């Protein structure tokens, strides 16, 4: 059997085409990371990471942006992880698979996941600031403006809404990996449903809960749109000390330096440095998610 030349060429062409698209992907990643690392590596120093911006952001460091990003994701996680976990527990442990309420919740979660992030920002502005915040001011502070304006609390809660679907879906997946046999064993020993969830199901899916948390944090650290109207600031001279303070964030800092700065060219090294820090942060978070999952799996097997 001799392969026809035509067929042979066709096979080679198709293989070449698929291979080249794969190579393009690798090239994009390599170029992107290389450009950022080369552009930013000389900028990174202990001083850059720990000091405030100076001279209209053309000099100095990015500490307030790092601090603000960390605080944002911490408050966000405190809100999103328990709420998302409880929702996931309801969906997997209590709701009947095809009940109207379960279907409605799943539909809502899917919808939340596809809403553009800028709309979360608008929602945060309308709901948290204009409604909740203003109501708090007029009820408790006699109309004195404190909560009815952007701050780190409203920004974090808005971000929590955005990351909620990520948490719910990953925790739900993790809860589903706990075999029903174990639930049955626990119930047959006279455990209540809640004891079974608390002592068997949640410990069995802790890796998934942690993974969901880290993925949510990683997403929250990188997003800018939801906090644009709800709390992030161009520049603040002091670190946020209260929930009602505004704050700086890495992603937004890059944006303001590239578009709002009086001298964009002068800020270029800082832009690269900040981008590298943000990239490294998300990489570290994702890698720790992977390591965590691996360790817990290994522990389970032993």
């Amino acid at each position, binding site marked *: 059997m001799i392969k026809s030349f035509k067929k042979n060429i066709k096979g080679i062409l198709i293989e070449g085409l698929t291979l080249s698209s794969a190579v393009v992907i690798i090239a994009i990643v390599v170029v992107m990371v290389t450009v950022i690392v080369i552009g930013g590596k000389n900028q990174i120093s202990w001083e850059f990471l720990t000091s405030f911006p100076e001279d209209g952001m053309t000099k100095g460091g990015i500490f307030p942006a790092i601090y603000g990003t960390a605080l944002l994701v911490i408050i966000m996680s405190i809100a999103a992880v328990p709420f998302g976990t409880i929702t996931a527990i309801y969906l997997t442990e209590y709701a009947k698979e095809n009940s109207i309420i379960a279907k409605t919740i799943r539909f809502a979660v899917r919808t939340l996941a596809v809403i553009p992030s800028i709309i979360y920002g608008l929602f945060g502005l309308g709901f948290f600031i204009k409604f909740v915040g203003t109501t708090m001011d007029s009820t408790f502070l006699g109309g004195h403006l404190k909560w009815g304006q952007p701050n780190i609390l409203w920004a974090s809660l808005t971000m929590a809404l955005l990351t909620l679907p990520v948490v719910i879906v990953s925790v739900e997946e993790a809860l589903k990996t706990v075999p029903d*046999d174990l639930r049955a*064993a626990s119930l047959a020993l*006279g455990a*209540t449903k809640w004891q079974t969830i608390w002592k068997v199901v949640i*410990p069995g899916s802790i890796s998934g809960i942690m993974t969901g948390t880290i993925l949510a944090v990683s997403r929250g650290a990188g997003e800018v749109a939801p906090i644009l109207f709800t709390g992030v600031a161009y520049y603040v001279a002091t670190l946020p000390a209260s929930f009602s303070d505004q704050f700086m964030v890495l992603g937004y800092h890059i944006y303001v330096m590239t578009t709002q700065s009086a001298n964009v060219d002068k800020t270029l090294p800082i832009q690269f440095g900040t981008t590298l820090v943000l990239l490294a942060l998300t990489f570290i978070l994702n890698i720790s998610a992977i390591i965590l999952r691996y360790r817990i799996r290994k522990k*389970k097997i032993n």
Partner: protein
Amino acid sequence: MNLEKIQTENMFLYYGTKMALNDISIKIPEKKVTAFIGPSGCGKSTFLRSLNRMNDLIDGVKIEGKIIVDDINIYGKNIDVVTLRKKIGMVFQRSNPFAKSIYENVAYGPKINGLNDRKQLNEIVETALKNAAIWDEVKDRLGDSALGLSGGQQQRLCIARTLAVNPEIVLMDEPASALDPLSTSKIEELIVQLKENYTIVIVTHNMQQAARISDQTAFFYLGELIEYDKTKKIFTNPDKKQTEDYITGRFG
């Protein structure tokens, strides 16, 4: 004196509209081994799971008639299923230890009942493991994960875990069907020992097993209880032709 530990009267069970158990009336004596045999899908496991209300977990299951344990209808109003299941333990077909240490598996039941005293827990764990004939194999590694045990050891651990709650009745759903012959014989020896203190109800598809270890045998077929008698009688001189056909291997 009432020697019947469990008694059902005209019990029917439906999955949705499909009848799975048809008019079951049976009396199960205390501190004996009672075996349920029959071909797959005959309802023997479903019936067993009705005795500690594990069928409650399945949507669409409806039960009519009475199941009486110690003179109380367990499907009556005001029955606390959680307390009921402490009294009626269950060992499953596939061993299902928790992803915890050997010790924590056995201590799980007492702990959820609120027992936290280390000394008392140690005693309960040791006694339960001894009663389940696995103490000597695990006494030096109680802190190791239960998942590192062999299949047969895992199943005996699950039995120990059930015994630690101090039940009166132990239901066993084909407890040895996934095990090798040596592990199976260990489990069988154990079951015979356990009947001194516990009422044992075991579902098995292995007729030799039923013949070896049980005092009474009930033969189920297509959701009906065909025949129930002393094991010896069932296997040597059954009254019903269906029973004879089944135990001689003509169908099933």
